[in-house]
């Protein structure tokens, strides 16, 4: 992910450091926040498939099947959302949003959630949005891997809606805050 960022921003190597620091910061703060404020009853622990009484081979292929079935369906939802957005939102909206620094950051953060791009590819997508500030593009790179439509769908599906509805907005706000902080210091 950091290598991809370095390749995508050849003229701004500080972007790699900024992405690393901001992402680590947000992940740690989110963990501390959950430790202090989180309640176990918000989280519906996923029903683990039992592998008892199965041989090694059976347990292995059972896990493969289980994981493909879970992740695959949610992946399709994310792909459909991203494709819809790409076809529906006109490009002129982006130019208007880039003019205002605050709107630019919020717009790219929301875009990261809606587009749900893989974290190894997102740097190439956002590096082409040169009309946006580096901090706004950093927000895109920090928010995207932490919370987007497909991740929200997976969290809701795995831990229950009550957990996802609390966790996702907190992650979103913290990721924006973290990237603005790191952006003002490093970029």
């Amino acid at each position: 992910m950091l290598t991809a960022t370095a390749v995508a921003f050849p003229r701004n190597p500080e972007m790699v450091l900024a992405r690393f620091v901001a992402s680590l910061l947000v992940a740690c703060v989110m963990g501390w926040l959950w430790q202090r404020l989180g309640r176990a009853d918000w989280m519906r622990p996923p029903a683990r498939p039992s592998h008892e009484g199965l041989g090694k081979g059976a347990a292995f292929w059972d896990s493969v099947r289980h994981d493909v079935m879970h992740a695959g369906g949610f992946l399709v939802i994310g792909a459909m959302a991203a494709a819809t957005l790409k076809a529906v939102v006109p490009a002129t909206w982006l130019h208007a949003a880039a003019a205002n620094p605050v709107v630019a950051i919020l717009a790219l953060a929301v875009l990261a959630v809606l587009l749900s791009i893989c974290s190894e590819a997102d740097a190439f997508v956002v590096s082409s949005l040169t009309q946006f500030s580096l901090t706004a593009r950093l927000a895109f790179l920090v928010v995207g891997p932490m919370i987007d439509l497909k991740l929200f769908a997976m969290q809701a599906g795995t831990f229950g809606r009550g957990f996802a509805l609390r966790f996702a907005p907190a992650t979103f706000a913290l990721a924006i805050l973290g990237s603005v902080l790191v952006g003002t210091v490093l970029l």
Partner: protein
Amino acid sequence: MNRQAQAAVLFLVGAAVLHAGLTDLYLRYVKAGLRPLLLAAGVVLIMAAVATVWYERRGRGEAGDGHGHVHREPRVAWLLVLPSSP
């Protein structure tokens, strides 16, 4: 979604990935360098389908239906069989 349906979905997805990887079709979706991974993923998916059917048959023979609960996968997995325009 029961085990047989899951095996069918795994096989169909695996066959589609293999088909895309063995023709030039895959270039519409991923870069050329990812071809080996794509082919490997297709093979693994088909192996998973075969293994699911295999263990399902053997499991039924041994345990009968004294197996209390049947673990079903979520319905969202059915989205995997949606057609895509090639």
